[in-house]
């Protein structure tokens, strides 16, 4: 069992649309200067930006590191799924990580630990929990006046990007990750696997052609975790942190959001039928618990009824 194959190399596919400032910080958080114990050679960041009137652009995308490759696309549909499949097709690594929402900054150990897990098990599924910056979910906070200025103050308060783990101090678990670390979540905004596995899965389902890709990300996560011979590792002590940017489900006002949710849900039912329950795989935990993660470990234990 111990044949050490070639060193895994990670291609991170990051999708950007109408969020230049947030995406810039996300790319900074993926840079070798911020990520610990990795070099530019260990991974690449493939930024795929769908055209909009608020472009990030090549110059800003590539300013932090030479391992960033930028692609600008014209997209006729209101979905990131084609951009994701396009981005993965550009990958030069042995493994790929999908970040469907470019507004999610990450913690400093996520790249090293993803590579470590692929060294343990090349066929693994790797994900990390998702968070929202702020003291409540952004889809709620937006109704109470939360905005980009409020978020900028929070980031300033933890002196980001000095210690990226302090993001945990100013965040709450995403709705899809409320169940915590000891069970599979509903999705992840950092989903990694081998390129072989990616091809077997056929990538992300391009029929999710509605706002934000609808449930395409949940579908990908479930198909990956449910696929045979795929041990599931959770980087419980890392995370992806959603910055407010007026996205489809996290940044619109209540009534409008409910209408869109219904629409996305209808499409998901049409595509997947009844097979929409969250995966049952129990995660193998991997990671070093920064002090700021402790409260989320406590929360996670409560979620599974630990006494």
């Amino acid at each position: 069992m111990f044949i050490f194959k070639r060193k895994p190399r990670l291609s991170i596919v990051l999708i950007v649309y109408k969020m230049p400032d947030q995406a810039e910080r996300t790319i900074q958080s993926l840079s070798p200067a911020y990520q610990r114990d990795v070099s530019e050679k260990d991974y690449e960041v493939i930024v795929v930006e769908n055209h909009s009137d608020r472009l990030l652009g090549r110059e800003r995308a590539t300013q932090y590191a030479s391992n960033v490759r930028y692609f600008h696309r014209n997209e006729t549909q209101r979905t990131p799924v084609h951009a994701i499949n396009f981005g993965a097709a550009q990958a030069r690594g042995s493994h790929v990580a999908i970040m469907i929402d470019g507004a999610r900054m990450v913690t400093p150990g996520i790249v090293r630990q993803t590579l470590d897990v692929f060294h343990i098990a090349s066929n693994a599924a790797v994900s990390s929990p998702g968070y929202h910056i702020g003291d409540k979910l952004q889809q709620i906070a937006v109704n109470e006046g939360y905005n980009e200025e409020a978020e900028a103050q929070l980031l300033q308060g933890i002196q980001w990007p000095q210690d990226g783990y302090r993001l945990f101090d100013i965040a709450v678990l995403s709705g899809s990750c409320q169940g915590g670390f000891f069970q599979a979540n509903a999705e992840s905004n950092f989903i990694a696997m081998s390129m072989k596995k990616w091809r077997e899965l056929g990538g992300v389902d391009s029929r999710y052609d509605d706002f934000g890709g609808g449930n395409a990300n949940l579908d990908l996560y479930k198909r990956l975790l449910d696929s045979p011979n795929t041990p599931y590792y959770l980087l419980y002590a890392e995370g992806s942190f959603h910055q407010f940017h007026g996205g489809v489900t996290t940044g619109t006002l209540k009534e409008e959001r409910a209408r869109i949710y219904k629409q996305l849900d209808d499409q998901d039912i049409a595509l997947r039928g009844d097979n929409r329950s969250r995966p049952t795989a129990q995660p193998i935990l991997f990671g070093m618990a920064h002090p700021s993660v402790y409260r989320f470990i406590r929360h996670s234990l409560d979620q599974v009824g630990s006494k």
Partner: protein
Amino acid sequence: MSKPLLSIIVIAYDMQRQALNTLISLSPCYQEGVSADDYEVIVVENRSKRNMDVSAIAALPGNFRYFLRDEPGVSPAAAINFGFTQAGGEFIGLMIDGARMLTPGVVRYALMAFRATHNAMVVVPGYNLGENEQQFHLTHGYSEEKEQALLHDIGWPQNGYRLFNISSIGGANRRGVFHPFMECNCLFFPADIFRDIGQADERFNLPGGGALNLYMYRLIALHSLTEAFVLAGEGSFHQLHGGVTTSETNGREHVLERQSAQLTELLGYPYTSPKIEPILLGKIRHPAMRYLKQSVERGGERLERCARQGLNPYADDAKYEHKL
């Protein structure tokens, strides 16, 4: 079999029934997610009036090799070194006290850590069977018979994780997995690091090896190449067997004083638990969660205390500096 990657050395002395339970817990039909070819178990027994039943060991599935030695001294140090000469594995598991049964994921996750890095040190937290620390077993009316009844109640060896249901946290890791461990009674490390630290120092000649296990743990943990892992969802569970410090005997205090003095002398300074930050690895099954909950509470208190006092919680971890 071809040369295994992992050799697990188990030292036994005068603990016939308990050591056999330990070996059952190490067999590939009990350990999950591993095959017999992945590892060997080297059992080294120092002769006593109650030696192990060789035919029972031979009947176990897996790769067990049993050695009975005549030991002139009272320490397991020489037995460990003898076991090490027999070990074919690149990686070593050491159980200095053969009376410790394991949960079913120990071998799998230890091998996983070595796949992540050659220089892994894998720490398995320790527990005592029964509600109380076993050095006070007489006070609490605990006995081998009661322990056997507990094991019977959980249907052991089926579902080995139920050991957590009949146990209490061990003294070496009393404050849980987010505190520095004092020692580890089921420890995995690369063979070359064990060579580097001089193997088991036979100057530890007191009964049971005295503080030898603490000494080895500290040297391995602080080896410049070591990367520490802790299997928070697994455990080694001590069975009552009248050991030197784990049973309630007269003169225990005196024994501990001698051990401590020898440790300070051989180490060259007073012992402290190595303050290193481990990677937590593995699944956490439900029965283990109450311990993780205690761990995170106690760990949080420690970090707050360190912050108040301006101390680095992982002061022995050279790798931690750039993380601050």
